[in-house]
């Protein structure tokens, strides 16, 4: 009994931290519709600020508390600056470009932390006066955690007062429900957005600062926390602060009991809960159905592509055929990698560009394609071409199952459910040692001798990736592709003319999964091995960034984006340790200069 009580308290303490971070994220999304990847970076920055300030402020025992508050305020100011200087410039671009911008910020902040504080792990000071523990039910419990359990609800109360007792708070609630109506009533949206960003970042900062006495500071704490924060926000319902509180309590307490009851499931528990909640309640526990913005299709730019001139296409084809004769060997391999990601990004583009469905878990199908090919080759002993061709089928089968549930949801909920499924795939390949080799992966997945030379594998990859891209274009130009666009632009009208939305989107999901799996198969024989990391979130973010960078509204966007991203990444990494800073800065510059992606600009100049 005492065990259960102490475990409950531990869970509550963790829940309060989740709440601080998630409530800020939820607020920002609710009002501005920005999927703010950089929220975790603000959390990390605040922790490092607190660490340094606590050591320098000459305030004796009060130094830590002053440092924590100051750090949160600093981060709040920074959040405001980011909104005013960067995000405000791209509000007119399709919404997703703000996501690309926040992703670039994640990279920049990560390297800034590396530069100023170094990469070694750090432990900050204990909280003066709360460093010890108190006996509870015969066990010792940290007094700091108790203080946090009391502090969390106070923050929630403060938020409630802001939202219900101040004009500003009421406007925020109104904007969360219907932003355009609030604007129509004459409220200055820009000030509202900046304010929300400041408040949201302050909450993230507070969460990070208060973790300093408990956790270790690491340069990867941003990415660790951001996924968890999104899970909480989505379970609670985007934009609902009370939903965030409820979901934090649910996840915090569940995790605490999880280590007792299901110790091996801790890797996916949170994601399984999210998947179940979303399947039962498509807008989270306390979320409301989204109001479709009146400027229909604003999530994605309208398509602007002029079809490429046949002479251009023939020329590009000839160059691609001649490349391996002209390039040094390494660059031949590099070209294969670019083809792989071009196909991977193109498959995601079918969902994002045509369907308006943003997936955060597309790596699942890429990874399953890679694992499918590797395991059929090594365990089942299939010949390489057969294993290669079966890989996309494996991926498509998984996409059929996961897609069935995912397409019932829209926007961020759809994205997060695909993320949950990708995490479940990750957990399975990571934990199923006897088949997948666990974290040590599957090794020696090389093409047979007749295909081994760089030139031959280049043509193999070019052939399959090229065929994949062409087929995706055929799909896009077919009545099916047109119907998909119709659903994207106005689901209700599309339904009214007799389109079966779910069946249509489900089919698109399976097709996208199939080609992602094909990309995975090309990739596995290029690298010779496959590991669970292939199915993880960073691998899902890559094609997303490529599609956006290239231009979500243009058919050539994913191809240009993949080439640009891979080349930038390879060249920058070659010359500097601070590749994240370089890449992030270039991405920010590109988004500000080309808010419709690189292809968007090319098309505009040609027309």
């Amino acid at each position, binding site marked *: 009994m005492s065990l259960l009580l102490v475990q409950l308290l531990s869970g509550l303490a963790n829940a309060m931290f989740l709440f601080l971070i998630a409530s800020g994220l939820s607020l920002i999304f609710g009002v501005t519709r920005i999927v703010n990847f950089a929220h975790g970076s603000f959390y990390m920055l605040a922790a490092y600020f607190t660490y340094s300030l606590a050591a320098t402020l000459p305030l004796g025992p009060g130094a830590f508390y002053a440092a924590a508050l100051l750090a949160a305020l600093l981060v709040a100011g920074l959040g405001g600056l980011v909104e005013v200087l960067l995000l405000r410039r791209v509000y007119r671009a399709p919404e997703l470009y703000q996501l690309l911008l926040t992703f670039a910020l994640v990279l920049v902040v990560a390297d800034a932390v590396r530069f100023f504080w170094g990469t070694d792990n750090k432990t900050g000071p204990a909280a003066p006066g709360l460093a010890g523990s108190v006996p509870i039910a015969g066990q010792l419990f940290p007094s700091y955690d108790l203080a946090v359990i009391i502090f969390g609800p106070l923050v929630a109360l403060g938020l409630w007062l802001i939202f219900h007792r101040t004009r500003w708070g009421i406007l925020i609630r109104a904007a969360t429900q219907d932003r355009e109506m609030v604007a129509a009533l004459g409220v200055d949206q820009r000030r509202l957005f900046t304010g929300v960003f400041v408040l949201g970042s302050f909450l993230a900062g507070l969460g990070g600062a208060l973790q300093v006495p408990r956790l270790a500071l690491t340069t990867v704490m941003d990415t660790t926390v951001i996924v968890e924060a999104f899970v909480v926000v989505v379970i609670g319902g985007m934009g609902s602060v009370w939903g965030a509180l409820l979901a934090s309590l649910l996840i915090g307490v569940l995790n605490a009991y999880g280590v*007792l009851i299901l110790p091996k499931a801790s890797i996916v528990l949170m994601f399984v809960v999210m998947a179940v909640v979303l399947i039962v309640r498509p807008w989270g526990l306390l979320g409301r159905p989204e109001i479709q913005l009146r400027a229909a299709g604003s999530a994605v730019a309208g398509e602007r592509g002029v079809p490429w001139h046949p002479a251009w296409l023939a020329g590009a084809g000839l160059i691609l055929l001649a490349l391996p004769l002209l390039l040094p060997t390494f660059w031949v391999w590099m070209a294969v990698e670019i083809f792989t990601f071009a196909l991977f990004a193109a498959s995601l583009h079918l969902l994002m560009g045509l369907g308006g469905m943003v997936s955060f878990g597309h790596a699942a199908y890429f990874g399953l394609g890679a694992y499918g090919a590797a395991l059929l080759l090594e365990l089942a002993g299939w010949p390489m071409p057969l294993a290669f061709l079966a890989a996309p089928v494996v991926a498509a089968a998984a996409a059929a199952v996961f897609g069935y549930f995912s397409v019932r949801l829209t926007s961020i909920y759809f994205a997060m459910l695909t993320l949950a499924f990708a995490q479940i795939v990750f957990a399975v390949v990571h934990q199923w040692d006897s088949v997948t080799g666990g974290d*040590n992966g599957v090794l020696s997945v090389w093409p047979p001798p007749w295909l081994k030379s760089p030139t031959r594998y280049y043509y193999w990859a070019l052939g399959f990736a090229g065929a994949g891209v062409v087929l995706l274009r055929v799909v896009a130009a077919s009545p099916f592709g047109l119907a998909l666009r119709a659903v994207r632009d106005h689901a209700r009208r599309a339904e009214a003319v007799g389109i079966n939305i779910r069946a249509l989107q489900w089919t698109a999901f399976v097709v996208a999964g199939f080609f992602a799996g094909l990309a995975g198969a090309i990739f596995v024989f290029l690298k010779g091995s496959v590991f669970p990391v292939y199915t993880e979130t960073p691998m899902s973010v890559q094609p997303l960034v490529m599609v956006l960078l290239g231009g979500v509204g243009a058919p050539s966007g994913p191809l240009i984006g993949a080439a640009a991203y891979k080349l930038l990444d390879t060249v920058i990494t070659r010359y500097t340790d601070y590749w994240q800073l370089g890449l992030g800065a270039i991405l920010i510059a590109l988004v500000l200069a080309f808010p419709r992606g690189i292809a968007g600009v090319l098309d505009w100049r040609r027309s």
Partner: protein
Amino acid sequence: MRSRLLLFLITAGLALSFPAQAAAQAPIKVGEINSYSGIGAPFTGPYKAGVEMAVEEINAKGGVLGRKLEVLFRDDKGQPAEAVKHAQELVESEKVALIAGTFLSNVGLAVSDWAKQNKVMFVAAEPLTEALTWSKGHDYVVRLRPNTYEQGRMLAEKAGKMKYVKWATIGPNYEYGKRAWETFRDRLKEMKPAVQVVGEHWPTLGKIEPGPLVTAIMSQNPDALYVSLFGSDWLAFVREAQKRGLFQKTFVVGILLGEPEYIDPLKLEAPEGMLVTGYPWYDIKSPAHQEWVARYTKRGDKPPVLGSLIGYVTYQAVAEGIKKAGSTDRAKLVAAFKGLKVETPIGPITFRAVDGQSTMGAWVGTTKLDAARGVGIMVNHEYIPGEKVLPSDDEVKKLRPGN
């Protein structure tokens, strides 16, 4: 006309002589792949400093085979696929003589498999997985650090002589954590059949929930706890365990946890009385090592951690291997690394001919707080060389189906 002919001859002569001269002086390139960003980042900075120090010293003494050694550093970002890309670039474009480095086990395995496929020598520095030199071992890979099997055995030899019967474990839920525990547990049970396991906890790497785990472990009342957590997971775990009184009730055995990398960030929160493997650089008496520590500290104004030593010794081995091969020919390098002897700051080590595992050992000792330096240190430590715990050649051959 004559002057033109003369000019032509001079130019031609210069053109012919330069490449020859340049080739004689061109440095020998080595490709170094490691996780300088991402999850390995906290540990690779000192490693890099060790590498640079070794290369500076080697080059100051005239280099290898009369040529300077040049190291090309590449960041694998903690991603195996990235590491393979770097291997391709280093070998195909930069024409490096061999590849070295890596920290994470999966990255090490990916590079090792690529090296085998492309017949390039790979000197693995830090990955600890046994698979690297055993089940997935081959001729083109050798590894410096003592693997999970060796370190688990070293600890078990001591723990088996202690009174503790009820054991629990906590470690990251992937191969490293599981093997670190299994090798320890198996040897412990051999030595002390009465041993029982009362709990196993496998939090996700980098995402530990320390408070609930400490309570869960304490509720199982183990006499002793075996820990294979590391990095930020370990630091967070200690902070909760201290506040909840775990260390007062339970004896702790920790693999790697005496390494400065893992104990220094805890400052005076480090638990005392743990049995650990590690690296007590401050207390190793051999003059060669003391001199090395002085050189390292002077160079970077920071004392070494284990990564520093690993980086240094890896490149000593690289230089010795190339010297022994007498050229950068790939087949000769492979032959040279078989049974290669290297004189290191901590004494001579050998890369075993049978599996390429070096005989570098580890220090086993007990932790204690050093108020003067403000960190935990190891006391009563003993260096256990790899030979003492490595399986015999016959046993190893059975573990290597590929060879």
